[in-house]
């Protein structure tokens, strides 16, 4: 549905995008992830034809945006980072304007009404946009993107600046829309992408650093290869017992958790949970807690962004920091 090939873009001398390529099939939701200034908005602006790239190509449903912009633009609904709203118009006037601007061939009133229902702005239809709250403005922006039911939706940080309640609503809406549209969504929030998207592209400094299915990205490193243990007993002895267990490669003493109890992390080549349990069952020492350290998308992401591609080395509990 969407094919982005070797996209390159310079801002004066700064390379904003460097050979960005990815593709997306019909009905998929792609999460475009990266820190601020990574090139997310630039990529989206090129996909939608607002900017031109200095190299590479973008194909929307088989139509090249550079060669046939009119045709390609009809297939895209775009919600930019700042919704392009005319403050002096009412919501209805604005949507009617966008309807005509996009040359939508549908009965105007019914179509606009049904979209207003969908994004829940029916009750503010007659209000002037200037007076709307941030959440409503975002939704009017989304309504504008939905006009004409374009097969492709490009949403640039659709939940930024919304309150938690609104964020949940918008995410639910996007997931619903994903059933009928192919969606590219950008975000610097991992939880969002994890919650909504089928596929993730991580971009940093204008380069794509990871391009995977969400499940496989989250799954990386989520094994029992690293364990966290809390054990009651004599510190030295526990430490050496852990080290003697077959398959253990490293034991790190994290210190005293509560009186007489110590925390350790254990790295191993394979699953050693059973061995540890049996070893300690023979002694007076008690295992109070044993849990695999899970790598969340967050770890993978931070690992990738900070340049450590080996996810196993990524800090494991950044989420607590």
């Amino acid at each position, binding site marked *: 549905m969407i094919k982005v090939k070797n996209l390159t873009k310079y801002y004066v001398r700064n390379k904003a995008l460097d050979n960005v390529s990815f593709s997306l099939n019909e009905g998929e939701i792609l999460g475009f992830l990266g820190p601020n200034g990574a090139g997310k908005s630039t990529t989206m602006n090129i996909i939608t034809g607002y900017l*031109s790239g200095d190299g590479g190509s973008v194909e929307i449903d088989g139509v090249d945006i550079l060669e046939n912009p009119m045709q390609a633009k009809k297939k895209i609904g775009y919600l930019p980072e700042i919704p392009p709203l005319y403050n002096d118009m009412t919501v209805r006037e604005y949507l009617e304007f966008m309807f005509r*601007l996009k040359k939508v061939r549908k009965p105007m009133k019914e179509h606009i009404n049904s979209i207003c229902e969908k994004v829940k702005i029916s009750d503010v239809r007659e209000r002037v946009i200037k007076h709307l709250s941030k959440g409503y403005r975002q939704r009017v922006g989304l309504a504008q993107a939905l006009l004409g039911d374009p097969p492709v939706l490009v949403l640039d940080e659709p939940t930024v600046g919304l309150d938690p309640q609104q964020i949940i609503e918008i995410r639910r809406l996007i997931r619903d829309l994903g059933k009928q549209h192919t969606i590219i969504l950008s975000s610097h929030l991992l939880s969002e992408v994890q919650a909504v998207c089928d596929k993730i592209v991580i971009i940093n400094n204008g380069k794509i650093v990871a391009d995977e299915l969400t499940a496989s990205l989250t799954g990386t490193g989520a094994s029992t290869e690293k364990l966290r243990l809390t054990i009651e007993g004599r510190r030295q002895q526990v430490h050496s017992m852990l080290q003697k267990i077959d398959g253990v490669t490293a034991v790190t003493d994290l210190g005293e958790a509560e009186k007489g109890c110590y925390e350790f992390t254990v790295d191993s080549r394979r699953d050693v949970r059973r061995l540890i349990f049996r070893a300690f069952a023979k002694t007076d020492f008690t295992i109070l807690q044993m849990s695999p350290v899970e790598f969340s998308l967050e770890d993978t992401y931070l690992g990738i962004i900070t340049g450590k591609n080996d996810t196993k080395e990524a800090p494991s509990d950044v989420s607590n920091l």
Partner: protein
Amino acid sequence: MSAIYKRDFRSYFNSPIGYAVLAAFMFFSGIFFYVQCLYMGSAAMSSVFQSMFFIVLFVIPLITMKSFADDRRNKTDQALLTAPVSIPAIVAAKFLAALSVFALCLCSFLIEGLVLSFMAKPDWSVIIGNIFGMLIMGSSFVAMGIFVSSLTESSIVAAIVSFVINVLLSLLDTIGYTVHWDWLTSIINALSFQGKYNDFSLGMISLGNVVFFLSVTCLFLFLTDRVVERRRWA
């Protein structure tokens, strides 16, 4: 294109700008009309049109200042440029919307003609010719104003720069008198707006002058198109 035209035209009257411009234009044309026609007891409106030349210089930047600058500042240009509309169509729509507001201003002359017709027999051909001439000249100023507006995000800057350009253009004749090189004088006179406009106001509509104003209009609309297109590559 018609969608953008309608929106832009209406936006002038969603804010005080449209009303202020109309009021100012009618106020001054009313004063000149009163002094030069009613008070002097003359039915010839040519001098009113000549006096209005300077008002036009100041009014048009107010009409054109928001044209592209506001769209850029509010990021609504993203909606326009990602819609299936070509850039020339966007430029044309915005130009026509601004020109329509100016045309609305010119209607004040029709009212004055009507007032005059109660007391004397006004020369309608002169009035209509003058309105036409002012519209043609105004279209050049509007195109220049829109071009300036496309260069900046600030409508205030756009207005000030347009004022300066317009005033400089109107000073060309004065400069022309003070220069003693014939070739330079002829270049300056060729570029002069006021000289050509005064021909109009005397009832002489020469093809050359019409072509001149239309060429200036087209040139600046073309340049605007280039500026907007170029920004996509910057």
